[in-house]
């Protein structure tokens, strides 16, 4: 278990202010914040690269606030991988092993085992300059995991990879977590937080503004900052099932049709408010999801009106003011909401 208690640190023009949170054993903890919020600084403080001005850090009950970097038992994977360019992949893996106080097993064998686990066995004799971004990320992960760290710190691991690679790496991180690795993952991307995290802390301006389970934080943002940052309106915990060849997500009394390649049945869905279409009467369209509900509130927003309606669950649709006037939308009106199966984004747990 990793605990940060009131960590503060002043830098020129920026400061971490009493940052506190706890990462339990087996957690996939996400530290979510915009660029410059202080996320990476928190990681570097935990790793020992930066010493805090005040506060304490405990790992498994052991105070490590001023402990030497080398003795902390913490693994850090940098955003730009930081794979040593003058060594082969094997050299990189063995470098980490040689630094251990007592090498338990043959280093060559251990490097191969880890390479096998992260599917980089064929890359062992290659130099980093010949590897792709995804391969470098795997090497950086393997190099850190080979030391069996008490906690794995990941600094924006998916920030600079393309969409295809992102889902591959997400699957890999999920796998590493399932194998029992405690992870603290820093990101600016709320989709990553939903997709991977079991707990989330949101950091803004060097301060933790909310902490909780992913569901708590996104469903009940405690501040405008969290709500605005997350930008999520239609966010539901769901259970997937397949009926007549169609994938359905059940949340409360509602079943929503969607398209996904994920196999896990428990997860979250998000539907962008802009993708919801409102009508006063049932309409015949190519969209497959239609629900009738009652308007609970209409709130003017920058780009029109946010209409919240209760259709068994609360949907929020974004419509222009002109459309709202034309449809004569009023609080208490009965309306239909429609959206495509492809507008539903699914994230498994």
């Amino acid at each position, binding site marked *: 278990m990793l605990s940060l208690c009131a960590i503060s640190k002043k830098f020129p023009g920026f400061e971490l202010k009493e940052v506190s949170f706890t990462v339990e054993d087996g957690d996939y903890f996400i530290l979510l914040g915009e660029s410059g919020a202080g996320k990476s600084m928190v990681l570097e403080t935990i790793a*020992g*690269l930066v010493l805090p001005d005040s506060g304490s850090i405990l790992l498994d009950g052991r105070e490590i606030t001023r402990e030497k*970097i080398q003795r902390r038992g913490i693994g850090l994977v940098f955003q730009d991988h930081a794979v040593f360019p003058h060594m082969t992949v094997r050299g990189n893996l063995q470098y980490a092993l040689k630094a251990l106080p007592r090498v338990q097993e043959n280093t060559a064998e251990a490097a191969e085992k880890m390479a096998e686990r992260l599917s980089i066995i064929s890359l062992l004799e290659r130099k980093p300059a010949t590897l792709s971004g995804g391969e470098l990320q795997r090497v950086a992960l393997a190099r850190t995991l080979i030391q069996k760290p008490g906690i794995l710190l990941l600094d924006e691991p998916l920030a600079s990879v393309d969409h295809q690679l992102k889902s591959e790496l997400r699957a890999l991180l999920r796998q590493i977590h399932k194998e029992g690795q405690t992870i603290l993952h820093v990101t600016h991307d709320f989709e990553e937080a939903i997709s991977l995290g079991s707990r989330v802390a949101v950091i803004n301006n060097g301060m933790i503004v909310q902490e909780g389970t992913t569901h708590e934080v996104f469903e009940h943002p405690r501040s405008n900052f969290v709500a605005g940052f997350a930008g999520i309106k239609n966010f539901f915990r769901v259970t997937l099932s397949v009926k007549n060849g169609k994938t359905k997500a059940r949340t409360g009394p509602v079943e929503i049709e969607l398209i996904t390649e994920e196999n896990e049945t428990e997860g979250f869905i998000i539907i962008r408010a802009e993708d919801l279409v409102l009508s006063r009467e049932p309409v015949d369209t190519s969209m497959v999801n239609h629900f009738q509900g009652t308007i609970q509130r209409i709130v003017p927003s920058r780009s029109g009106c946010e209409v919240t309606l209760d259709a068994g669950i609360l949907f929020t649709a974004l419509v222009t003011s002109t459309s709202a006037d034309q449809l004569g939308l009023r609080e208490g009106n009965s309306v239909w909401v429609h959206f495509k199966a492809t507008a539903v984004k699914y994230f498994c747990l």
Partner: protein
Amino acid sequence: MRTKASPSDLFFTLTGALVLLFIIAPLLGMFLKTTPSTLFETASETEVRQSIWLTIWTSLAATLFFSVTAIPFAYLLARKNFPFKGLVTGIIDLPVVIPHSAAGIALLGFVSRDSVLGQMGSAIGLNFIGHPAGIAIAMAFVSIPYLINTARDGFAGVPERLEKAALTLGASPGRVFFTISLPLAWRNILSGLILMFARGMSEFGAVVIIAYHPMITPVLIYERFGAFGLKYARPVSVLFILISLALFILFRWMAKPKSNEKS
């Protein structure tokens, strides 16, 4: 498709050609006026051969000996901020900007028998004045800025992230220096060593004040010019330039990245 050269292109080409001519013409003139037989005769002179050998080994010794302190110092300058860093950087460049004969006078006071270093040398029977050790000190004094500055640039070019990553992987700061920083800055360091060595070999002003004898080649050239004239100084100069060039090309070739390193 070839584009027509603009007047400005012509201007820059012309100025470049003039500068090249300015460097090449005197050297070429000297080479053309020296016949192969004269060159061979000069090369067979014991005094000349001893002088060239002395110049090479003292400069090499000075470079290697002082690199032990200069390289870690360059790392410190690249990585750490400390009070008066600007002043320290300025001091490093001093030997480049002061007249080298003046540097020789300053060094004479520093290594003479009355000085602390001179007394320490005397205690082990070493007199720096007129000794290869004194020559090496004079050569190092004027050439060490080249090594420090080039190595500092090399270390500055190594991403700090890599050093931090090595630390988080459990490496000690010493191991990080020897396994990450030094190998990654190695090409710059090697360039610095070559520059320091070459600069040391060509030094005259500071060396001639510390040690007229034994004669390093620049002093020998000066002596032959003063005693016998241009005709006798020229073949030694040509021979020394050829050997310096050969060494320079050899070291550059050794420092060149191999094709597998590039990938």
